């Protein structure tokens, strides 16, 4: 009987000031208990992680052989692959050919192996989830600038090379890369450059003919017609390269200079900041953009029906000293439940046929000796107008590499990037 409900309703009794204060105090008293409980539950990364003072930056001038701890050894030789394993590969969206998973499952069908892909948006997010145990994965797909943190943070395990015979298919320089000498913890995955893409039907000038093509991002005639990559290292690297600085600069004056130039870029051209350039260029949302070579190649397949990809151009410096070249890799997570099968999966991805198909699917070249860069254009794999997306092995000795930044410097870069994206 609704009329009588109010009589007993708990909300009908007003909370007087005394009662309110009493309940507030009780709540306040409960907080330390909750805090103690949460403290007990947390893994307290501050105590677990090594300090930043022990940080080692690998670079071509300072190659690093990461130590192998006796508490984190590689698996033994000749182990039988795990039965009924489900290999979880933690990677970017659309960065692994599903056919490669199917062929792996087929190849090891007698072990009833299944493959699973879990995706992340950024490696920051990925590392966070791996550290917190928020994800259970076997193989992780980062770029090499995370190597030191992953080894020191004890997130990955060393590889047993006897399971990865297909490493012989890989460019020789990647069997002993500066970021992981003796490829103790990683195998290479993709290689790419970072350059500028434009449409000749929308941009009348030859951007490549400019003295400094990076200037286009500050040229008001392209206001609201550009985009830069939503990746603070890559976008800020563009600013550094325009000025002729090291893309890993820790110099406070240069870092302040990058901040100033980003603000000027916002004022001059107000670029979009995203990673959908491979769609935005074909659909004319932007006319020009900063792009990874793999995405530039992908644009061909995103061109609307009836429109020719001949209008696409990709510029990467003819002098690669002022251009960015990078690679991604596959690492075996320490948390892997199926390390033997995970080794075999890495080996599978280095198989020439699998690698070639994966390249065609993702648009990102794999550093395979049988994928001859000079033939990619002549055999029609890559259109002539995009010939510059081809990544040659020699670029890796000349181009600028994104290196791991010391944590304090990295925090400065991230703070500047936040300010840029706030559009102030």
């Amino acid at each position, binding site marked *: 009987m609704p009329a009588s409900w109010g009589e007993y309703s708990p909300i009908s009794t007003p909370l007087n000031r005394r009662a309110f204060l009493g309940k507030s105090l009780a709540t306040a008293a409960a907080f330390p208990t909750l805090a103690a409980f949460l403290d007990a539950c947390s893994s307290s990364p501050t105590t677990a*992680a090594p300090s930043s003072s022990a940080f080692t930056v690998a670079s071509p001038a300072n190659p690093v052989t990461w130590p192998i701890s006796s508490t984190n050894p590689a698996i033994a030789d000749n182990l039988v692959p795990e039965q009924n394993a489900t290999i979880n590969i933690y990677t970017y969206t659309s960065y692994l050919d599903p056919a490669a998973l199917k062929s792996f499952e087929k190849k090891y069908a007698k072990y009833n192996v299944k493959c699973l892909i879990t995706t992340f948006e950024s490696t920051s997010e990925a590392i966070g989830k791996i550290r917190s145990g928020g994800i259970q994965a076997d193989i992780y797909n980062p770029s090499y600038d995370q190597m030191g943190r992953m080894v020191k943070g004890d997130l990955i395990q060393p590889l047993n090379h006897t399971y990865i015979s297909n490493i012989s298919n890989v460019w020789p320089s990647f069997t002993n890369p500066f970021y992981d000498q003796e490829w103790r913890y990683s195998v290479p995955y993709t290689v790419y450059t970072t350059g500028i893409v434009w449409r000749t039907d929308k941009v009348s000038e030859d951007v490549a003919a400019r003295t400094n093509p990076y200037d286009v991002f500050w040229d008001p005639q392209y206001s609201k017609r550009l985009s830069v990559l939503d990746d603070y290292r890559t976008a800020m690297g563009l600013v550094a390269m325009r000025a002729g600085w090291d893309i890993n600069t820790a110099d406070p004056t240069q870092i302040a200079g990058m901040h100033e130039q980003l603000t000027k870029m916002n004022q001059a051209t107000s670029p*979009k900041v*995203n990673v959908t350039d491979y769609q935005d260029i074909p659909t*004319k949302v932007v006319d020009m953009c900063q792009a990874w070579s793999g995405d530039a190649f992908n644009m061909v397949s995103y061109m609307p029906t009836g429109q020719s990809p001949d209008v696409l151009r990709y510029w990467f410096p003819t002098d690669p000293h002022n251009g960015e070249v990078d690679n991604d890799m596959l690492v075996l997570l320490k948390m892997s439940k199926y390390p033997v099968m995970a080794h075999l999966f890495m080996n599978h991805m280095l198989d020439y046929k699998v690698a070639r198909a994966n390249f065609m699917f993702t648009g990102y070249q794999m550093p395979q000796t049988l994928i001859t860069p000079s033939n990619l254009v002549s055999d029609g794999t890559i259109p002539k107008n995009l010939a510059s997306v081809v990544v040659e092995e020699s670029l890796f000795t000349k181009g600028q590499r994104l290196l791991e930044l010391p944590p304090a410097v990295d925090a400065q870069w991230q703070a500047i990037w936040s300010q840029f994206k706030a559009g102030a």
Partner: protein
Amino acid sequence: MRRRRFLWVALATPGVLWLLLLFVFPFYVVLSLAFGTLDPLFLSPVPIWNPMHWIPDQFTYVLSHLAGAAGFYGPAILRTFAYVFIASVGCLLIAYPVAYYVSRFGGKRKGMLLVLLIAPFWISYMMRMLAWVNLLQIDGWINKVLSFGGIFNVHIAWLDGRPSTVILGLIYGYIPYMILPLYAGLDRIENSLLEAARDLGASRLSTFRRVTLPMSKSAVVASLLLVTLPMVGDYFTNDLLSASPSTAMFGNLINTAIEADSQVGKGAALLIIMFVVLLAPMLYYVRMTEKAEGGAV
């Protein structure tokens, strides 16, 4: 008596648990992050659970960058209020007549009209926004329609990072949330009251102005709150329809901070500030409802 009291406690328990688990606890985590520190190697946020040990550095950083020469957060926050104000008014101007029509003139088709109104809910917000991305492209249907079959040469770059497109997206995305509570409020107004006003000589317009509008005030406020609060925290609409820092909103500030390890604590501080700002209209609504209930008694 004791049994009845037990019944009320039992009924309240799920709601209280819900609030504790999905509001109080997450909010405490946010506080612990905002007043927490950073992992020295990974730069990832390290929450400090004990309030006695909280470090205010990240919070004071955000506060000191809200306004003034170093106030890079300020423009985005002001921009957000401007966008949300225009979008909310836009929603109201569109939703009120629609809800009024359905409640007063829907007749037997009320049910069908309501189903049509909630139809957009069947499709995810992301899909709806992606549809707009297609429609608004230079070669998209919006420009084709505006060119009247090719008579005019229309090449408007809707997606080049303009505020009007972001506001359009906000209106489109949130308008169903406004129509439904407005309809519910308008439908509750007794026809006899409107008839009485007309019998007493009031014109249609006067009846609307002096009876319908005042009686739907709480529905208008409730529906405004329903769209305004999520709009303030929205980052997705801007990301998809603009992606330009020049249209970055409050939600984008938080999202950008969360994406960069070392900035997560600052993102948490921004979230707390947003929470405090949004508390004001919420409290106004609660007070207004209490007043209305008091008046009714």
